[in-house]
């Protein structure tokens, strides 16, 4: 049986290596320092993804600022505060949110933020990504909080701490690695999203100067290059994918390091 599970893992890792090597083979030729700091240029003139990298980071930050606290709070509610049928209904509704195609979320944010403001903006893009993030973070937070042993809760309560201190000071830190997993999954998910950004953050050739303006992002840039007819742009799309995955891996490593179990 061990060989069976080892085989599953081997297959998954092999799939990853196949895809990664394909991406690398296609894109490694275009990677250069210049590529990482330039803004895009017309076909035949080179150009780079500098503004897209910065744009993606800004969008990631905005969506995390909105999405992580809200998602964790919902998770805390579902696990610690909510009772009975109301919590069940909330959980059900949050689950449904995970199944919405990201393009529908993008169109929704377009309708409530972009149309009234009459222009596309990085803010709208961040909000759309946050909406995609929240159910993932909420669900994993709830599951991880529930898995913290009751003895920890009871011990803290027995020491006289009020519930909010128990939750914030004992349970969340105990579940921190698991919550970090949820956050990482959410960040990985939204850093690969294209469709919602097309209606909200829109895209730009320039370096971002304001949150109130359209902003470039790696995924939209990859999408635009990938569907073009030019091999040069295709190669840039693959190289940009490598950069994107390195970015996500980097964030993953940092967060894991900060939330590692120290006992």
């Amino acid at each position, binding site marked *: 049986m061990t060989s069976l599970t080892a085989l599953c893992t081997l297959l998954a890792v092999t799939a990853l290596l196949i895809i990664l090597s394909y991406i690398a083979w296609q894109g490694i030729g275009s990677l250069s320092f210049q590529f990482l700091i330039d803004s895009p240029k017309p076909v*035949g003139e080179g150009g780079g993804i500098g503004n897209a990298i910065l744009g993606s980071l800004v969008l990631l930050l905005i969506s995390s600022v909105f999405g992580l606290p809200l998602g964790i709070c919902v998770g805390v509610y579902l696990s610690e505060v909510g009772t009975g049928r109301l919590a069940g209904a909330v959980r059900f509704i949050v689950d449904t949110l995970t199944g919405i195609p990201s393009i529908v979320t993008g169109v929704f944010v377009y309708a409530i933020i972009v149309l009234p403001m009459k222009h596309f903006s990085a803010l709208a893009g961040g909000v759309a990504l946050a909406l995609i993030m929240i159910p993932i973070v909420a669900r994993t937070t709830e599951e991880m909080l529930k898995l913290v042993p009751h003895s920890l809760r009871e011990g803290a309560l027995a020491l006289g701490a009020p519930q909010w201190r128990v939750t914030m000071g004992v349970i969340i830190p105990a579940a921190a690695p698991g919550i970090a997993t949820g956050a990482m999954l959410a960040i990985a998910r939204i850093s690969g999203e294209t469709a919602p950004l097309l209606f909200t953050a*829109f895209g730009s050739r320039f370096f971002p100067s*304001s949150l109130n303006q359209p902003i470039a992002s790696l995924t939209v840039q990859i999408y*635009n290059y990938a*569907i*073009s*007819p030019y091999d040069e742009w295709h190669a840039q799309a693959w190289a940009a994918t490598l950069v994107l995955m390195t970015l996500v891996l980097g964030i993953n490593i940092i967060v894991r390091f900060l*939330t590692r179990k120290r006992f």
Partner: protein
Amino acid sequence: MSASKKSFQLVAWLSVLVVLLAFVACGSGTVSLQGAGASFPSPLYQKWLSEYGKLHPNVKIDYQSIGSGGGIKQLKEQTVDFGASDAPMKDEDLKSAPGEVLHIPTVLGAVVITYNLQGISQPLRFSPETLADIFLGKIKKWNDPKIAADNPGVTLPTRDITVVHRSDSSGTSAVFTDYLSKVSAEWKEKVGAGTSPNWPTGIGGKGNEGVTGQVKNTPNTIGYIELAYAVQNKLPVAQVKNANGNFVTPSIDAVTAAASASAANTPEDLRVSITNAAGAGVYPISSYTYILVYKNQKDAAKGKALVDFLWWGIHDGESHAKELQYAPLPADIVKRAEGKISSVTAGGTPLR
């Protein structure tokens, strides 16, 4: 808990940074314009924006390709300053727009027929009826007598034809189905012309890229794509019989010829379909692509920048068209486009 305190501090500082960024304004004196729309002319427009930006560094123009329909929609919602569309706007769209919209033609493009067949070295030829029947699903095999009649002396394989069409709504589909509707009454009745036809047969690829990829990787396929994709991917391109009875290879000159030949029939607002135009060297599946602007601009500074850019585009910009496989406008159409651009006003005063 020091690590989580540190991470909290990090997040706090980053949030401050984000808030600061929100208040950094653009440099004063720069004019920003947003455009959106068709993906077909996008590479050319990116070239135009870059070249124009070198001449006028205080004008920042962005263009995103989200599709012709997207361009029209965003223009109507006034979230962008100009739109771009392959197919001209319909009457209902024009009526429901908040202001009068002008169509400025910029360049021309061709929809080509590409295929994947082993052992065929010279380009295949198709007459319009054969094409319609293939895409209707009535001709199922490559060695069908109708295809053989178009290609005397060529040994065609006995395989089944796999049709590849666009799965997403697209101006390319609109142009191709517009052509098929003109040359086949059955097509016009059964399927019609539009951006999302109900294809009677075949598999759908997403975008020109998707169709290109499928034709390239799947044997015995036939599909339709923009000329630039066929050239860049070195795919075989078929010759199509035009209204005069000549089999024409799609080329930039053949496309410009289609526009010149239709110039006389082009209405005043420049909304016209030039498929199946009459003329000796005309390639029959050609089309304009337009930039859409409001006749009455709200912001005079933006309007002036826009008008200047468009003027530059239809004159100096055309010189970049050929190297990117776009067909430049014929001279008489440039004249008429000039007239349209000159009629753009802001608060009553013309901007040019």
